[in-house]
């Protein structure tokens, strides 16, 4: 299986697992892409874009459920990459001083 086929398969099973867990109503889209972790190990960055921010930040337990669902789905296709999951919504507050200036 080529790298790109492996990534496509991983993306499909992760998206499906996340939608099964959270339902589709609140989700705008899920993006999955290959990354390396800090130790140089291959991983997957899974970003769940919400239509709208919930009234409270996503609970840690739900983040853990999403990681577990994605990890289980990946293991079922013998893909042992770790899914690093992030929730993002349009209203989320970014830091004020993000750009380094020389």
């Amino acid at each position, binding site marked *: 299986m080529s790298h790109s086929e492996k990534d496509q398969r991983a993306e499909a099973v992760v998206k499906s697992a996340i939608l099964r867990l959270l339902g589709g109503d609140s989700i705008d889209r899920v993006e999955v892409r290959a990354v390396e972790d800090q130790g140089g190990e291959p991983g997957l960055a899974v970003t769940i874009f919400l239509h709208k921010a919930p009234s409270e930040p996503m609970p840690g337990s739900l983040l853990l459920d999403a990681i577990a669902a994605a990890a289980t789905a990946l293991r079922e296709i013998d893909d042992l990459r770790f899914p690093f999951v992030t929730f993002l919504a349009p209203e*989320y507050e970014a830091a004020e001083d993000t750009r380094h200036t020389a």
Partner: protein
Amino acid sequence: MWSLVQHQLANARLLATLEKRRPRQASLRRGVSTAYYAVFQSLCVTCADTLVGKGKPWDVFTPVFRSLEHGRVAHTLLQSSVATTSELKRFGLAFKELQAAREWADYNPEPRPSFEEGRKSSPFTREETLTLIGLAEEAVAILDGLNEDARLRLATRLVARMRN
């Protein structure tokens, strides 16, 4: 829960909510890092309490407390021989996610990869930071809920070096 761990989690929340308007990058980064260290030190004290014992002299307690290595712990926790229950599996997953976030918070000046392509350009948003702190609280609760036998087996695997 060890009071140091409890207070680290409380401090992480304080940092994440310190600025009433847009949060400072430094506050969010330190919030994420502090949340990870609460989990790591919770694991360190669990190992030392279990293998050495509470109230034992520092010269035997501290070496075990300090014997855990970040990368090795994350790797070991995800091994099938260690993650033998759903709770241990969840703990390992939470630890790995938090460790990666902490590495980014402490060392990487860039926005997180997903943010550049998304609608935000920020290392962390306030909400992501609060969710990661919630994840750390979840992980500490899992660790606190382990029975004596599970703690002993976990501590042994994390501290002892196995021959290949």
